């Protein structure tokens, strides 16, 4: 029934990663491509895993409890907030290019990890996982959020360290 979608997703996954690998080899990958590729890759892989129910991790293809539209809407708003942080970072870099120095890629990685964690959170609302898989699902979601927070703190640390070096006059100029 879903054969066409599965084939399309598989082709998209392979094509996207080949294009991504070529870009990496030629050093022509910008931050925004990295972010979108990371997010799209994760979504396709999760959709394929869901379809094939690898390891029978899905108990039923229906929500565990009746869906609360406010709850799901707010979780989507959380994902949107991550995308806002991502877009704001580019606006900030345009205003003040020092932000694009040390810590820039780490900042984008933090937002990517957080967005993936949020996507998993929304995904879990629509499916009923087996009781064995549920703690693992929570661990995966939590690991992405923890990694996102740690990486964001590192990005700020590196940015201020870099700014300090940039704003400190060299002894020759004194």
């Amino acid at each position, binding site marked *: 029934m879903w054969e066409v979608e599965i084939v399309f997703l598989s082709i998209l996954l392979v094509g996207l990663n080949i294009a991504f690998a070529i870009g990496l080899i030629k050093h022509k990958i910008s931050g925004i491509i990295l972010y979108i590729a990371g997010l799209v890759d994760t979504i396709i892989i999760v959709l394929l895993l869901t379809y094939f129910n690898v390891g029978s991790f899905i108990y039923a293809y229906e929500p565990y409890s009746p869906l*609360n539209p*406010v*709850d799901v809407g*707010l*979780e989507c*708003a*959380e994902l949107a*907030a*991550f995308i*806002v*942080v991502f877009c*704001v*970072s580019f*606006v*900030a*870099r345009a*205003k*003040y290019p*020092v*932000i694009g120095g040390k810590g820039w890629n780490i900042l984008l990685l933090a937002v990517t990890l957080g967005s993936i964690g949020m996507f998993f959170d929304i995904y879990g609302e629509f499916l009923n996982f087996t*009781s064995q898989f*549920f*703690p693992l699902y*929570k*661990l995966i*979601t*939590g690991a992405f*959020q*923890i990694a996102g*927070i*740690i990486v*964001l*703190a590192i990005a*700020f*640390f590196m940015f*201020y360290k870099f*700014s*300090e070096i940039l*704003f400190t006059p060299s002894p020759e100029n004194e």
Partner: protein
Amino acid sequence: MFLFEFNWPPDLKDIPTFSIEVSIFIVGCIAGIIGVFIWKNHRILARKGLPECVIGFFVFAFHSLFDALDTICENAPLKENLDLMDSLYSIVGLILIAIGILRISIYGAKIWREL
């Protein structure tokens, strides 16, 4: 045992979820404390923007505390409210971080011009 409306100690099945959510809260608070240290060490550079980001870190950390409390809560209306607070705190935290990043850039550009 019920502590107020919470099941304490948590049921065996809730322990993994509860521990992960509490760990996110702890890591978020540590990130906030690191932010406070950066703020203290770079008084001039971090005067504007970073305070909003640090508050954002703490608010984002608290979203996970509400998530953890929601896991062990036994009262249905309170559980629903905690779930709502969890999402709202997460959104507010992220918006504060976004505002902070914008203010860092505006302030940075200003002091760069003044140099």
